[in-house]
Protein backbone atom coordinates (compact mmCIF):
# COMPACT_ATOMS: atom_id res chain seq x y z
CA UNK A 1 0.00 0.00 0.00
CA UNK A 2 1.23 3.48 -0.83
CA UNK A 3 1.98 6.07 1.85
CA UNK A 4 1.49 9.56 0.50
CA UNK A 5 3.32 12.45 2.07
CA UNK A 6 2.39 16.00 1.16
CA UNK A 7 5.24 18.39 1.87
CA UNK A 8 4.11 21.92 2.69
CA UNK A 9 5.69 25.12 3.92
CA UNK A 10 4.47 28.32 5.51
CA UNK A 11 4.08 31.46 3.44
CA UNK A 12 5.97 34.72 3.87
CA UNK A 13 3.85 35.72 6.87
CA UNK A 14 5.51 32.79 8.60
CA UNK A 15 2.19 31.55 9.96
CA UNK A 16 -0.23 30.34 7.29
CA UNK A 17 0.46 27.69 4.68
CA UNK A 18 1.30 28.98 1.23
CA UNK A 19 -1.47 28.74 -1.38
CA UNK A 20 0.60 26.32 -3.43
CA UNK A 21 0.98 24.13 -0.34
CA UNK A 22 -2.79 24.07 0.17
CA UNK A 23 -3.20 23.04 -3.47
CA UNK A 24 -0.80 20.15 -2.87
CA UNK A 25 -2.87 19.12 0.15
CA UNK A 26 -5.94 18.86 -2.09
CA UNK A 27 -3.98 16.75 -4.57
CA UNK A 28 -2.76 14.52 -1.75
CA UNK A 29 -6.23 14.01 -0.33
CA UNK A 30 -7.61 13.11 -3.75
CA UNK A 31 -4.82 10.65 -4.47
CA UNK A 32 -4.97 9.05 -1.02
CA UNK A 33 -8.71 8.53 -1.39
CA UNK A 34 -8.35 7.00 -4.85
CA UNK A 35 -5.54 4.64 -3.83
CA UNK A 36 -6.91 3.97 -0.33
CA UNK A 37 -3.49 5.07 0.86
CA UNK A 38 -2.24 6.53 4.12
CA UNK A 39 -1.99 10.33 4.02
CA UNK A 40 0.72 12.20 5.91
CA UNK A 41 1.31 15.95 5.73
CA UNK A 42 4.66 17.48 6.58
CA UNK A 43 5.09 21.16 7.39
CA UNK A 44 8.27 23.25 7.30
CA UNK A 45 8.48 26.67 8.97
CA UNK A 46 9.65 28.57 12.01
CA UNK A 47 6.31 28.18 13.81
CA UNK A 48 3.82 25.75 12.30
CA UNK A 49 1.02 25.91 14.87
CA UNK A 50 -1.43 27.99 12.82
CA UNK A 51 -0.61 26.11 9.65
CA UNK A 52 -1.16 22.76 11.33
CA UNK A 53 -4.47 23.84 12.83
CA UNK A 54 -5.68 24.72 9.34
CA UNK A 55 -5.05 21.09 8.37
CA UNK A 56 -6.79 19.52 11.38
CA UNK A 57 -9.83 18.52 9.34
CA UNK A 58 -7.80 16.57 6.77
CA UNK A 59 -7.59 13.63 9.15
CA UNK A 60 -3.99 13.14 8.05
CA UNK A 61 -1.03 12.41 10.27
CA UNK A 62 0.78 15.73 10.71
CA UNK A 63 4.56 16.01 10.94
CA UNK A 64 6.57 19.20 11.29
CA UNK A 65 10.11 20.48 11.19
CA UNK A 66 10.11 23.86 12.88
CA UNK A 67 12.36 26.41 14.51
CA UNK A 68 14.10 29.64 13.57
CA UNK A 69 16.60 27.83 11.36
CA UNK A 70 13.69 26.81 9.11
CA UNK A 71 12.23 30.28 8.77
CA UNK A 72 14.37 31.14 5.75
CA UNK A 73 14.05 29.37 2.40
CA UNK A 74 17.56 27.98 2.03
CA UNK A 75 18.86 24.84 0.36
CA UNK A 76 20.79 23.30 3.24
CA UNK A 77 18.07 23.66 5.88
CA UNK A 78 15.06 23.00 3.65
CA UNK A 79 16.62 19.91 2.07
CA UNK A 80 17.46 18.51 5.50
CA UNK A 81 13.92 19.24 6.74
CA UNK A 82 12.22 17.62 3.75
CA UNK A 83 14.52 14.61 3.87
CA UNK A 84 13.73 14.08 7.56
CA UNK A 85 9.98 14.36 6.97
CA UNK A 86 10.13 11.83 4.14
CA UNK A 87 12.11 9.37 6.23
CA UNK A 88 9.83 9.63 9.26
CA UNK A 89 6.71 9.30 7.11
CA UNK A 90 8.25 6.37 5.19
CA UNK A 91 6.56 7.86 2.19
CA UNK A 92 6.38 6.02 -1.11
CA UNK A 93 4.86 8.95 -2.98
CA UNK A 94 5.69 12.53 -2.04
CA UNK A 95 3.68 15.45 -3.38
CA UNK A 96 5.03 18.96 -2.97
CA UNK A 97 4.16 22.39 -4.32
CA UNK A 98 6.29 23.66 -7.17
CA UNK A 99 7.09 26.82 -5.21
CA UNK A 100 10.47 28.52 -5.43
CA UNK A 101 11.23 27.20 -1.94
CA UNK A 102 10.62 23.53 -2.71
CA UNK A 103 11.73 23.65 -6.35
CA UNK A 104 15.16 24.61 -5.03
CA UNK A 105 15.52 21.48 -2.90
CA UNK A 106 13.20 18.71 -4.09
CA UNK A 107 15.60 17.03 -6.52
CA UNK A 108 18.35 17.00 -3.91
CA UNK A 109 15.94 15.43 -1.43
CA UNK A 110 14.96 12.75 -3.94
CA UNK A 111 18.62 11.91 -4.48
CA UNK A 112 19.30 11.66 -0.74
CA UNK A 113 16.36 9.28 -0.35
CA UNK A 114 17.50 7.13 -3.24
CA UNK A 115 14.27 8.08 -4.96
CA UNK A 116 13.23 9.70 -8.20
CA UNK A 117 11.53 12.96 -8.98
CA UNK A 118 9.35 14.49 -11.67
CA UNK A 119 8.43 18.15 -11.66
CA UNK A 120 5.91 20.56 -13.21
CA UNK A 121 3.15 18.00 -12.78
CA UNK A 122 -0.17 19.36 -14.02
CA UNK A 123 -2.38 16.33 -13.33
CA UNK A 124 -2.23 13.01 -11.50
CA UNK A 125 -4.31 10.18 -12.90
CA UNK A 126 -4.14 6.50 -13.75
CA UNK A 127 -6.71 3.74 -13.53
CA UNK A 128 -4.88 1.62 -10.97
CA UNK A 129 -1.44 3.10 -10.44
CA UNK A 130 -0.16 6.64 -10.52
CA UNK A 131 0.34 8.45 -13.80
CA UNK A 132 1.61 12.02 -13.90
CA UNK A 133 1.07 14.54 -16.68
CA UNK A 134 3.70 17.11 -17.51
CA UNK A 135 4.91 19.18 -20.45
CA UNK A 136 8.16 18.89 -22.36
CA UNK A 137 9.93 21.30 -24.69
CA UNK A 138 8.58 24.36 -22.91
CA UNK A 139 4.91 23.50 -23.02
CA UNK A 140 4.96 22.20 -26.61
CA UNK A 141 4.68 18.46 -26.02
CA UNK A 142 2.50 16.87 -23.36
CA UNK A 143 3.36 13.51 -21.83
CA UNK A 144 1.89 11.13 -19.29
CA UNK A 145 4.51 9.13 -17.42
CA UNK A 146 4.75 6.61 -14.67
CA UNK A 147 7.43 5.06 -12.48
CA UNK A 148 7.52 1.88 -10.45
CA UNK A 149 10.44 2.99 -8.28
CA UNK A 150 9.74 4.45 -4.86
CA UNK A 151 9.96 6.90 -3.25
CA UNK A 152 8.66 9.01 -6.11
CA UNK A 153 8.53 12.76 -5.61
CA UNK A 154 6.08 14.80 -7.66
CA UNK A 155 6.33 18.57 -7.73
CA UNK A 156 2.97 20.09 -8.63
CA UNK A 157 2.58 23.20 -10.76
CA UNK A 158 0.67 26.00 -9.03
CA UNK A 159 -2.92 26.51 -10.09
CA UNK A 160 -3.57 22.89 -11.06
CA UNK A 161 -5.62 22.02 -7.97
CA UNK A 162 -8.03 23.92 -5.75
CA UNK A 163 -6.53 25.15 -2.50
CA UNK A 164 -7.59 23.07 0.51
CA UNK A 165 -9.98 24.89 2.84
CA UNK A 166 -11.24 23.03 5.88
CA UNK A 167 -12.38 23.65 9.43
CA UNK A 168 -9.65 24.95 11.69
CA UNK A 169 -9.06 22.86 14.80
CA UNK A 170 -6.50 21.92 17.39
CA UNK A 171 -4.11 19.72 15.46
CA UNK A 172 -1.82 17.07 16.90
CA UNK A 173 1.58 17.58 15.35
CA UNK A 174 4.58 15.28 15.65
CA UNK A 175 7.77 17.33 15.71
CA UNK A 176 10.65 15.86 13.73
CA UNK A 177 14.11 16.80 14.98
CA UNK A 178 16.72 17.83 12.42
CA UNK A 179 20.37 18.45 13.21
CA UNK A 180 21.90 21.16 11.03
CA UNK A 181 25.51 22.22 10.63
CA UNK A 182 26.27 25.93 10.91
CA UNK A 183 24.69 27.45 7.78
CA UNK A 184 27.01 28.88 5.11
CA UNK A 185 24.14 30.71 3.46
CA UNK A 186 21.91 33.36 4.99
CA UNK A 187 18.92 34.97 3.37
CA UNK A 188 19.16 38.70 3.75
CA UNK A 189 15.82 39.65 2.26
CA UNK A 190 13.57 40.02 -0.74
CA UNK A 191 14.23 42.52 -3.50
CA UNK A 192 11.01 43.63 -5.14
CA UNK A 193 9.93 46.59 -7.27
CA UNK A 194 8.17 49.43 -5.47
CA UNK A 195 4.55 48.56 -4.72
CA UNK A 196 3.21 50.76 -7.50
CA UNK A 197 5.86 49.53 -9.93
CA UNK A 198 5.16 45.83 -9.44
CA UNK A 199 3.92 44.51 -12.76
CA UNK A 200 4.04 40.75 -12.17
CA UNK A 201 0.97 39.58 -10.30
CA UNK A 202 0.58 35.80 -10.23
CA UNK A 203 -2.88 36.01 -8.62
CA UNK A 204 -4.28 38.44 -11.23
CA UNK A 205 -7.24 37.33 -13.34
CA UNK A 206 -5.66 38.69 -16.50
CA UNK A 207 -2.32 38.57 -18.27
CA UNK A 208 -1.54 41.57 -20.46
CA UNK A 209 1.08 40.70 -23.08
CA UNK A 210 3.06 43.44 -24.77
CA UNK A 211 4.89 42.85 -28.01
CA UNK A 212 7.64 44.71 -29.81
CA UNK A 213 5.09 46.72 -31.82
CA UNK A 214 4.73 49.16 -28.90
CA UNK A 215 8.24 50.47 -29.57
CA UNK A 216 8.10 50.49 -33.37
CA UNK A 217 7.43 53.49 -35.62
CA UNK A 218 3.78 54.50 -35.64
CA UNK A 219 1.78 55.87 -38.61
CA UNK A 220 3.30 59.35 -38.08
CA UNK A 221 6.77 57.87 -38.62
CA UNK A 222 7.77 58.45 -35.00
CA UNK A 223 8.38 56.14 -32.03
CA UNK A 224 6.14 56.78 -29.04
CA UNK A 225 7.71 54.81 -26.20
CA UNK A 226 6.64 57.28 -23.52
CA UNK A 227 3.02 57.16 -24.64
CA UNK A 228 3.16 53.36 -24.84
CA UNK A 229 4.50 53.17 -21.28
CA UNK A 230 1.74 55.44 -19.98
CA UNK A 231 -0.97 53.44 -21.75
CA UNK A 232 0.34 50.08 -20.54
CA UNK A 233 0.86 51.19 -16.93
CA UNK A 234 -2.56 52.87 -16.97
CA UNK A 235 -4.13 49.63 -18.16
CA UNK A 236 -2.35 47.62 -15.47
CA UNK A 237 -3.42 50.11 -12.79
CA UNK A 238 -7.05 50.00 -13.85
CA UNK A 239 -7.34 46.25 -14.37
CA UNK A 240 -4.86 44.83 -11.84
CA UNK A 241 -3.53 42.66 -14.66
CA UNK A 242 -0.12 40.99 -14.65
CA UNK A 243 2.31 42.11 -17.33
CA UNK A 244 3.97 39.68 -19.70
CA UNK A 245 6.25 40.53 -22.57
CA UNK A 246 7.60 38.96 -25.69
CA UNK A 247 11.31 38.10 -25.67
CA UNK A 248 12.03 40.51 -28.48
CA UNK A 249 10.65 43.46 -26.54
CA UNK A 250 12.65 42.63 -23.42
CA UNK A 251 15.81 42.03 -25.45
CA UNK A 252 15.64 45.43 -27.12
CA UNK A 253 17.31 47.00 -24.09
CA UNK A 254 20.47 44.98 -24.72
CA UNK A 255 20.42 45.99 -28.37
CA UNK A 256 20.36 49.70 -27.56
CA UNK A 257 16.85 50.23 -28.93
CA UNK A 258 14.03 52.16 -27.22
CA UNK A 259 12.64 50.19 -24.31
CA UNK A 260 9.74 50.30 -21.92
CA UNK A 261 11.54 51.14 -18.67
CA UNK A 262 9.49 48.89 -16.41
CA UNK A 263 10.09 45.70 -18.42
CA UNK A 264 12.66 43.15 -17.30
CA UNK A 265 13.43 39.54 -18.18
CA UNK A 266 11.13 38.58 -15.34
CA UNK A 267 8.19 39.80 -17.44
CA UNK A 268 9.13 37.57 -20.34
CA UNK A 269 6.70 34.83 -21.29
CA UNK A 270 7.42 32.03 -23.70
CA UNK A 271 10.35 29.83 -24.60
CA UNK A 272 12.83 31.34 -22.15
CA UNK A 273 10.30 33.02 -19.93
CA UNK A 274 7.32 32.12 -17.79
CA UNK A 275 4.17 30.25 -18.69
CA UNK A 276 1.78 31.84 -16.21
CA UNK A 277 -1.75 30.74 -15.36
CA UNK A 278 -4.49 33.35 -15.62
CA UNK A 279 -8.19 33.20 -16.47
CA UNK A 280 -7.84 35.75 -19.28
CA UNK A 281 -5.13 37.08 -21.52
CA UNK A 282 -4.92 40.11 -23.80
CA UNK A 283 -2.05 40.30 -26.28
CA UNK A 284 -1.11 43.59 -27.92
CA UNK A 285 1.32 44.52 -30.68
CA UNK A 286 2.69 41.02 -30.60
CA UNK A 287 3.45 38.96 -33.69
CA UNK A 288 5.60 36.21 -32.28
CA UNK A 289 5.24 32.53 -31.74
CA UNK A 290 6.48 32.47 -28.20
CA UNK A 291 3.75 34.40 -26.39
CA UNK A 292 0.96 32.77 -28.33
CA UNK A 293 2.13 29.18 -28.46
CA UNK A 294 4.23 28.78 -25.32
CA UNK A 295 3.53 31.72 -23.03
CA UNK A 296 -0.24 31.41 -23.43
CA UNK A 297 -0.47 27.67 -22.85
CA UNK A 298 -2.27 28.05 -19.54
CA UNK A 299 -4.34 31.16 -20.30
CA UNK A 300 -8.09 30.52 -20.39
CA UNK A 301 -9.85 33.17 -22.46
CA UNK A 302 -7.46 34.78 -24.97
CA UNK A 303 -7.88 37.95 -27.01
CA UNK A 304 -5.42 39.87 -29.13
CA UNK A 305 -5.14 43.29 -30.74
CA UNK A 306 -3.08 43.20 -33.89
CA UNK A 307 -2.77 45.20 -37.08
CA UNK A 308 -2.06 42.02 -39.01
CA UNK A 309 -5.28 40.13 -39.80
CA UNK A 310 -3.21 37.21 -41.09
CA UNK A 311 -0.92 36.85 -38.09
CA UNK A 312 -0.34 33.11 -38.06
CA UNK A 313 0.46 32.95 -34.39
CA UNK A 314 -2.85 34.33 -33.19
CA UNK A 315 -4.93 32.22 -35.58
CA UNK A 316 -6.00 29.11 -33.72
CA UNK A 317 -4.39 30.34 -30.51
CA UNK A 318 -6.53 33.35 -29.59
CA UNK A 319 -10.32 33.29 -29.20
CA UNK A 320 -10.73 36.78 -30.63
CA UNK A 321 -8.36 38.92 -32.70
CA UNK A 322 -9.21 42.60 -33.11
CA UNK A 323 -7.58 44.05 -36.22
CA UNK A 324 -6.81 47.51 -34.90
CA UNK A 325 -4.16 49.86 -33.58
CA UNK A 326 -3.43 48.94 -29.95
CA UNK A 327 -2.42 52.53 -29.11
CA UNK A 328 -5.90 53.77 -29.99
CA UNK A 329 -7.84 50.87 -28.53
CA UNK A 330 -6.00 50.70 -25.20
CA UNK A 331 -6.33 54.47 -24.77
CA UNK A 332 -10.08 54.16 -25.21
CA UNK A 333 -10.29 51.08 -22.98
CA UNK A 334 -8.46 53.00 -20.26
CA UNK A 335 -10.92 55.90 -20.63
CA UNK A 336 -13.87 53.54 -20.26
CA UNK A 337 -12.38 51.75 -17.26
CA UNK A 338 -11.49 55.09 -15.64
CA UNK A 339 -15.04 56.34 -16.14
CA UNK A 340 -16.48 53.11 -14.77
CA UNK A 341 -14.23 53.35 -11.73
CA UNK A 342 -15.24 56.97 -11.10
Amino acid at each position, binding site marked *: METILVLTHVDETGAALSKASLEAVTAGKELATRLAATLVIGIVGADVTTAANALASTGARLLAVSGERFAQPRYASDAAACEALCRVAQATIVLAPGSARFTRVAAGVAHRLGGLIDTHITAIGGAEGVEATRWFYRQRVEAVLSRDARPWLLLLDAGTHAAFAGETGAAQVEQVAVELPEPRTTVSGIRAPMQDAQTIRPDAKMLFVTGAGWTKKQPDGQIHVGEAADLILGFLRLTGASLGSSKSLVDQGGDGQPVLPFLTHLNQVGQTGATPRHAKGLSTCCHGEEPHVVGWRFIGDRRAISLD*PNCGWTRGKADVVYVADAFTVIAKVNELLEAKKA
Partner: protein
Amino acid sequence: MANVLHIVVCAGIVPDPLQTLEPVTGPNGPGLKNEMVLPAVLDPWAASSLYEAANLAGKNPGSKVWLVSLGPKAKLQQVMMTVAQKVAFELVPIDGPIGGFPDAHSTAAVLADAIAALPGLDRNRLLLFGGWESATRGAGVTLQIVGERLGITDQFQGVDQIDLNEDGSFEVLERIEGGRHQVSACAGTPAVLGWATGNLAEPRNNPQVGMANMRTIMPALQKAKPTTLAANGLRYVSVSLPKQQRTTRVVKDMTPDQIAAELAEWIGAE
Protein backbone atom coordinates in the same frame (compact mmCIF):
# COMPACT_ATOMS: atom_id res chain seq x y z
CA MET B 1 42.92 40.18 -4.35
CA ALA B 2 40.90 38.37 -6.96
CA ASN B 3 39.52 34.91 -6.26
CA VAL B 4 40.53 32.01 -8.44
CA LEU B 5 37.37 30.23 -9.49
CA HIS B 6 36.86 26.90 -11.18
CA ILE B 7 33.54 27.26 -12.95
CA VAL B 8 31.94 24.21 -14.52
CA VAL B 9 28.98 24.95 -16.76
CA CYS B 10 26.55 22.14 -17.58
CA ALA B 11 24.74 22.90 -20.81
CA GLY B 12 22.84 20.69 -23.20
CA ILE B 13 21.82 21.30 -26.77
CA VAL B 14 18.20 21.81 -27.76
CA PRO B 15 16.26 22.19 -30.99
CA ASP B 16 16.17 25.75 -32.25
CA PRO B 17 13.06 27.28 -30.62
CA LEU B 18 11.66 28.24 -34.03
CA GLN B 19 11.46 24.62 -35.19
CA THR B 20 8.18 22.75 -35.29
CA LEU B 21 8.37 19.79 -32.96
CA GLU B 22 6.53 16.53 -33.49
CA PRO B 23 6.86 13.66 -31.03
CA VAL B 24 7.33 10.11 -32.31
CA THR B 25 7.73 6.85 -30.45
CA GLY B 26 10.58 4.55 -31.43
CA PRO B 27 12.04 1.33 -30.04
CA ASN B 28 13.92 3.29 -27.37
CA GLY B 29 10.91 5.33 -26.28
CA PRO B 30 9.66 8.76 -27.28
CA GLY B 31 11.67 11.28 -29.25
CA LEU B 32 11.19 14.01 -31.81
CA LYS B 33 10.62 13.43 -35.49
CA ASN B 34 13.82 14.07 -37.47
CA GLU B 35 15.51 15.04 -34.20
CA MET B 36 19.02 14.57 -35.54
CA VAL B 37 18.49 16.91 -38.46
CA LEU B 38 16.73 19.69 -36.55
CA PRO B 39 18.98 22.74 -36.18
CA ALA B 40 20.23 22.87 -32.60
CA VAL B 41 21.37 25.61 -30.26
CA LEU B 42 22.91 25.71 -26.80
CA ASP B 43 20.16 25.51 -24.20
CA PRO B 44 19.13 29.17 -23.66
CA TRP B 45 19.22 29.41 -19.87
CA ALA B 46 22.40 27.33 -19.73
CA ALA B 47 23.87 29.65 -22.37
CA SER B 48 23.15 32.57 -20.02
CA SER B 49 25.10 30.73 -17.35
CA LEU B 50 28.03 30.23 -19.71
CA TYR B 51 28.19 33.95 -20.46
CA GLU B 52 27.95 34.77 -16.75
CA ALA B 53 30.69 32.23 -16.02
CA ALA B 54 33.01 33.77 -18.61
CA ASN B 55 32.29 37.24 -17.26
CA LEU B 56 33.05 36.12 -13.71
CA ALA B 57 36.21 34.31 -14.78
CA GLY B 58 37.35 37.39 -16.67
CA LYS B 59 37.08 39.49 -13.52
CA ASN B 60 39.04 36.96 -11.48
CA PRO B 61 42.40 36.22 -13.13
CA GLY B 62 43.55 32.62 -12.94
CA SER B 63 39.98 31.34 -13.10
CA LYS B 64 38.89 28.73 -15.60
CA VAL B 65 35.62 27.75 -17.29
CA TRP B 66 34.74 24.21 -18.36
CA LEU B 67 31.67 23.50 -20.49
CA VAL B 68 30.31 19.99 -19.88
CA SER B 69 27.82 18.97 -22.52
CA LEU B 70 25.99 15.71 -23.17
CA GLY B 71 24.74 15.07 -26.68
CA PRO B 72 25.51 13.30 -29.95
CA LYS B 73 29.04 14.17 -31.02
CA ALA B 74 28.00 15.43 -34.43
CA LYS B 75 25.37 17.79 -32.99
CA LEU B 76 27.76 19.05 -30.33
CA GLN B 77 30.31 19.87 -33.02
CA GLN B 78 27.68 21.76 -35.01
CA VAL B 79 26.58 23.86 -32.02
CA MET B 80 30.15 24.50 -30.88
CA MET B 81 30.98 26.13 -34.21
CA THR B 82 28.87 29.08 -32.99
CA VAL B 83 29.21 28.88 -29.21
CA ALA B 84 33.01 28.68 -29.36
CA GLN B 85 33.12 32.18 -30.83
CA LYS B 86 31.34 33.72 -27.85
CA VAL B 87 33.57 33.12 -24.82
CA ALA B 88 36.64 31.11 -23.83
CA PHE B 89 36.10 27.68 -22.29
CA GLU B 90 37.34 24.12 -22.30
CA LEU B 91 34.78 21.71 -23.70
CA VAL B 92 34.12 18.41 -21.93
CA PRO B 93 31.88 16.56 -24.39
CA ILE B 94 30.00 13.39 -23.51
CA ASP B 95 28.71 11.48 -26.51
CA GLY B 96 25.16 10.52 -25.59
CA PRO B 97 21.52 10.77 -26.55
CA ILE B 98 19.75 14.01 -27.38
CA GLY B 99 16.37 15.26 -26.29
CA GLY B 100 14.10 15.81 -23.33
CA PHE B 101 12.77 12.31 -22.81
CA PRO B 102 15.77 10.46 -21.28
CA ASP B 103 15.73 10.27 -17.49
CA ALA B 104 17.17 13.28 -15.66
CA HIS B 105 18.66 11.19 -12.84
CA SER B 106 20.78 9.18 -15.29
CA THR B 107 21.87 12.38 -17.02
CA ALA B 108 22.90 13.86 -13.68
CA ALA B 109 24.92 10.77 -12.79
CA VAL B 110 26.86 10.90 -16.07
CA LEU B 111 27.53 14.63 -15.70
CA ALA B 112 28.64 14.29 -12.08
CA ASP B 113 31.07 11.50 -12.97
CA ALA B 114 32.54 13.59 -15.79
CA ILE B 115 32.99 16.62 -13.52
CA ALA B 116 34.52 14.57 -10.71
CA ALA B 117 37.09 13.25 -13.19
CA LEU B 118 38.14 16.66 -14.56
CA PRO B 119 41.92 16.97 -14.34
CA GLY B 120 43.03 20.06 -12.47
CA LEU B 121 39.62 20.84 -10.98
CA ASP B 122 39.84 22.15 -7.42
CA ARG B 123 36.45 21.30 -5.94
CA ASN B 124 36.93 23.79 -3.12
CA ARG B 125 36.95 26.54 -5.75
CA LEU B 126 34.07 25.05 -7.71
CA LEU B 127 31.07 27.01 -8.91
CA LEU B 128 28.73 24.63 -10.72
CA PHE B 129 26.70 26.59 -13.24
CA GLY B 130 23.88 25.66 -15.58
CA GLY B 131 20.38 26.67 -16.56
CA TRP B 132 17.73 26.37 -13.84
CA GLU B 133 15.66 24.42 -16.36
CA SER B 134 16.39 23.07 -19.80
CA ALA B 135 14.34 23.90 -22.87
CA THR B 136 13.84 20.18 -23.49
CA ARG B 137 12.86 18.30 -20.33
CA GLY B 138 12.41 21.51 -18.37
CA ALA B 139 12.49 19.62 -15.09
CA GLY B 140 15.01 21.76 -13.25
CA VAL B 141 16.43 18.79 -11.36
CA THR B 142 19.63 17.75 -13.14
CA LEU B 143 21.88 20.44 -11.72
CA GLN B 144 20.67 19.87 -8.16
CA ILE B 145 21.38 16.16 -8.37
CA VAL B 146 24.82 16.79 -9.87
CA GLY B 147 25.46 19.13 -6.93
CA GLU B 148 24.30 16.52 -4.42
CA ARG B 149 26.47 13.88 -6.07
CA LEU B 150 29.45 16.24 -5.73
CA GLY B 151 28.56 16.95 -2.10
CA ILE B 152 27.58 20.60 -2.58
CA THR B 153 24.88 21.80 -0.18
CA ASP B 154 24.78 25.48 -1.05
CA GLN B 155 22.51 25.64 -4.06
CA PHE B 156 20.62 28.47 -5.73
CA GLN B 157 18.06 28.26 -8.52
CA GLY B 158 16.63 30.89 -10.85
CA VAL B 159 19.74 33.01 -10.39
CA ASP B 160 19.87 36.38 -12.11
CA GLN B 161 22.95 37.83 -10.43
CA ILE B 162 26.06 36.93 -8.44
CA ASP B 163 28.31 39.50 -6.77
CA LEU B 164 31.62 38.14 -5.56
CA ASN B 165 33.33 39.79 -2.59
CA GLU B 166 37.08 40.02 -2.03
CA ASP B 167 36.98 37.45 0.76
CA GLY B 168 35.43 34.87 -1.58
CA SER B 169 31.91 35.17 -0.20
CA PHE B 170 29.17 36.17 -2.60
CA GLU B 171 25.64 37.53 -2.83
CA VAL B 172 23.10 35.79 -5.05
CA LEU B 173 19.77 36.98 -6.44
CA GLU B 174 17.31 34.14 -7.06
CA ARG B 175 13.94 34.50 -8.73
CA ILE B 176 10.95 33.78 -6.50
CA GLU B 177 7.22 34.15 -6.96
CA GLY B 178 5.70 37.45 -7.99
CA GLY B 179 8.56 38.81 -10.07
CA ARG B 180 10.82 39.28 -7.05
CA HIS B 181 14.30 38.17 -6.05
CA GLN B 182 15.45 36.47 -2.87
CA VAL B 183 18.80 37.85 -1.78
CA SER B 184 21.19 35.38 -0.14
CA ALA B 185 24.74 35.66 1.11
CA CYS B 186 26.97 32.57 0.85
CA ALA B 187 30.28 32.09 2.62
CA GLY B 188 31.97 30.99 -0.61
CA THR B 189 32.65 28.12 -2.98
CA PRO B 190 31.69 25.38 -3.62
CA ALA B 191 28.14 26.20 -4.71
CA VAL B 192 25.58 25.34 -7.37
CA LEU B 193 23.94 28.15 -9.33
CA GLY B 194 21.09 27.35 -11.71
CA TRP B 195 20.78 30.45 -13.83
CA ALA B 196 17.72 32.14 -15.23
CA THR B 197 18.36 34.90 -17.75
CA GLY B 198 21.03 36.80 -15.87
CA ASN B 199 21.84 40.35 -16.86
CA LEU B 200 24.34 39.95 -19.67
CA ALA B 201 23.62 40.31 -23.36
CA GLU B 202 24.76 37.51 -25.65
CA PRO B 203 28.44 38.19 -26.46
CA ARG B 204 29.28 39.07 -30.05
CA ASN B 205 31.06 36.45 -32.11
CA ASN B 206 34.81 36.78 -31.81
CA PRO B 207 36.69 34.70 -34.43
CA GLN B 208 39.90 34.83 -32.40
CA VAL B 209 38.19 33.32 -29.37
CA GLY B 210 36.61 30.80 -31.72
CA MET B 211 39.93 29.72 -33.18
CA ALA B 212 41.52 29.39 -29.73
CA ASN B 213 38.58 27.33 -28.45
CA MET B 214 38.43 25.08 -31.50
CA ARG B 215 42.05 23.99 -30.99
CA THR B 216 40.91 22.08 -27.91
CA ILE B 217 37.29 21.44 -28.87
CA MET B 218 37.97 19.25 -31.91
CA PRO B 219 40.39 16.87 -30.12
CA ALA B 220 37.99 16.73 -27.15
CA LEU B 221 35.11 15.80 -29.44
CA GLN B 222 37.17 13.08 -31.07
CA LYS B 223 37.94 11.61 -27.67
CA ALA B 224 34.39 11.97 -26.28
CA LYS B 225 33.31 8.80 -24.55
CA PRO B 226 30.02 7.30 -25.71
CA THR B 227 27.50 6.76 -22.95
CA THR B 228 24.01 5.38 -22.56
CA LEU B 229 21.43 6.59 -20.08
CA ALA B 230 19.48 4.17 -17.89
CA ALA B 231 15.70 4.59 -17.98
CA ASN B 232 15.39 4.19 -14.19
CA GLY B 233 11.94 2.66 -14.63
CA LEU B 234 10.61 5.75 -16.36
CA ARG B 235 7.67 4.69 -18.52
CA TYR B 236 5.87 6.99 -20.93
CA VAL B 237 2.15 6.25 -21.13
CA SER B 238 1.60 8.79 -23.89
CA VAL B 239 3.45 11.61 -25.61
CA SER B 240 1.45 13.96 -27.80
CA LEU B 241 1.04 17.45 -29.14
CA PRO B 242 -1.70 19.49 -27.51
CA LYS B 243 -4.81 19.10 -29.63
CA GLN B 244 -6.64 22.21 -28.56
CA GLN B 245 -7.10 24.42 -31.59
CA ARG B 246 -9.19 27.51 -31.00
CA THR B 247 -11.73 28.86 -33.38
CA THR B 248 -10.44 32.38 -33.73
CA ARG B 249 -12.94 35.17 -34.38
CA VAL B 250 -11.11 37.74 -36.50
CA VAL B 251 -12.76 41.15 -36.02
CA LYS B 252 -12.02 43.51 -38.91
CA ASP B 253 -15.10 45.70 -39.12
CA MET B 254 -15.38 47.31 -35.69
CA THR B 255 -14.28 50.85 -34.85
CA PRO B 256 -11.75 51.41 -32.04
CA ASP B 257 -14.63 52.70 -29.87
CA GLN B 258 -16.61 49.53 -30.43
CA ILE B 259 -13.60 47.32 -29.77
CA ALA B 260 -12.78 49.25 -26.60
CA ALA B 261 -16.35 48.91 -25.35
CA GLU B 262 -16.35 45.16 -26.01
CA LEU B 263 -12.97 44.74 -24.32
CA ALA B 264 -13.96 46.82 -21.29
CA GLU B 265 -17.05 44.66 -20.84
CA TRP B 266 -14.99 41.48 -21.27
CA ILE B 267 -12.42 42.67 -18.73
CA GLY B 268 -15.11 43.40 -16.17
CA ALA B 269 -16.97 40.13 -16.69
CA GLU B 270 -16.39 37.28 -14.23
